[in-house]
């Protein structure tokens, strides 16, 4: 099982760097995960997206549609890519502690 270390924290992650246990997530974990996505400073805009993803995940057990993320957070897709260079699914979902999206998506 790959691990990911930042400072004194160690996390179990899958091969793609997603948390193996999404339940241990909190804002500090998110900041640590953000470092793997080349995001050094989590701005309010980052948090808005991350918190939205997290809330949705807690309610439905799955990541929301990208389109819904855009509509509900008010960001356009390219703005989300500006915030999370590897995209909403691989970047933002990872920081929000969601499992990697699966299926034909």
């Amino acid at each position, binding site marked *: 099982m790959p691990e990911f270390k930042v400072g004194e924290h160690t996390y179990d992650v899958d*091969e*793609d760097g997603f948390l193996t246990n999404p339940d241990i997530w909190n804002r500090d974990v998110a900041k640590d995960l953000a470092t793997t996505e080349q995001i050094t400073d989590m701005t309010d805009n980052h948090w808005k997206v991350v918190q939205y993803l997290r809330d949705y995940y807690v309610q*439905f*057990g*799955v*990541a*929301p*549609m*990208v*389109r*819904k993320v855009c*509509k509900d957070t008010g960001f356009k*897709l390219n703005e989300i890519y500006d915030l999370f260079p590897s995209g909403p699914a691989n970047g933002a979902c990872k920081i929000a502690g969601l*499992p*990697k*999206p*699966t*299926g*034909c*998506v």
Partner: protein
Amino acid sequence: MKDVIRVSDMSRRNSDSLCTLDEPDLKPSPSSLGSVKEGPALTPLKPEVIQCCECSLDGTCALNIARPKSREEEDRLVASFLSGLEKLFTRENNWTFLRFLVYTMENCTRCQSCSDACHIYEASGRQEIYRPTYRTEVLRRLYFKYVKHGGLLSAWQHGDIELNWPLVARLAELSYRCNLCRRCAQVCPIGADNGLLAHELRKIFSQEMGIHPKELHDKGTMLQLKVGSTTGMPAAAVKDNVEFIDEDMSERTGLEVHTPWDVEGADVLLIHNAGEILAWPENPGAYAVVLNAAGIRWTLSSELAGYDAVNYGLWYDDAQFTRVALKQLEVARKLKVKKIVIGECGHAHKSLLVNVNRIADDELNIPRFSSIDLLRDIVFSGKLKLDPSRNNFPITLQDPCAIVRLMRIIEPQREILHAIAPRFREMTPHGVDNYCCGGGGGLAILNANNFGDWRSEVAGRKKLDQILNAFSDSLGSSIPKYVCAPCSNCKGQIRDLFSYWNIWERNRILYGGLAELVVNAMAEVKPGFLDWEWR
């Protein structure tokens, strides 16, 4: 000049790749794809991956098989493979495909007529290992030596081979370098089916050794059988998402869009690939618009597996295939619908319209057909007022292998496009002679390590070339263009391909489904339904 790779090289004991993929060797050249890339085609594998995983085939790695820690462990794995190989040729274990399997094993004359039919072989610069017959030849020699227990005479008649762990590990990876598009089978003069053999190999690994890509198994069929969909969406989530799609569609079309759920006795149960709902919501949305406008009594189902038509089992595991397919039919039976219609997803078409037929009993054998047929009927019923001028941009059509080559649904989508898309043009070749997008056989969703690079550099190369050629009169970024790909798998692959080669920025080519174009042409819909800025 590279050394020719031989069948015996599969058993080579060192962990160097059998071949390396260098950009200048790949066909067509990067410059004709509008790029100036040089050097190795794939991002190198990470050292830790090379250290812990078996990746000595071709510089990529889809399965991440852990390296055995000792010779004893290697021997156990080889013994397990061998027992799987033997089972593959017994009726108890493999009645499902034994006939075709034995046929191809025993009759292929190795005339290599199929090699040039394979887009992967061609694109790779004719790397020996990607020949449709290479992997088959390995299996054939194993078959005659270990299943038929042939001695010296047999080795002389069929060729010899050494079975060891490096060979098994390489063969596992090699079985996932085929799109199962079956273009090779189509051209075979004696009807041998090398595509089927890649599928049969995958079955040894999955059904006996428990080796499969996690995207197809753990996060594929297993997840589908657990929560209802390979996307991980439980019923509550899918309903929430579709509600959002309805609102979004109502806003964009100016029509009242409502998706009915779990309507008992409906005329049509529509089953989409659930990936559409998450990644390409315009498609299920467009179906809602069209079906409502045509006055069809339709429904979606929120039962387990009833809202996801995919069946990844079709690509690697017979047990998983039958489990998923029977569940989907059972949903329709319980809902007492009159017909099942499969959304725009190639392998779902094939699994539910063809492959499951013989194991479904009379009760489960509910009439089912393609959403493309239904769209064609609606378009020509006169129930929609269509304005083709709204689709006045260059459009080409991707032919999903499962739907077109393997099921022969060829004309309906073309009839539609001729009616609603004045600037429609074909790719060359097209129809049953089409090339796979490069994502077939489940490959589109495999993303371990640098496998995405391999899909875009090798598997999808031919398709990208075809698409660019189809638009040769309007390349560049000033004219928007559309690849109509009525298959989720194709769309996923084309998305990755376009992003890898920067096609949207350079050439303004959008991709999407068929129903979206119909809605875009509907006169009563607000003009400009297609969202060109979205991707």
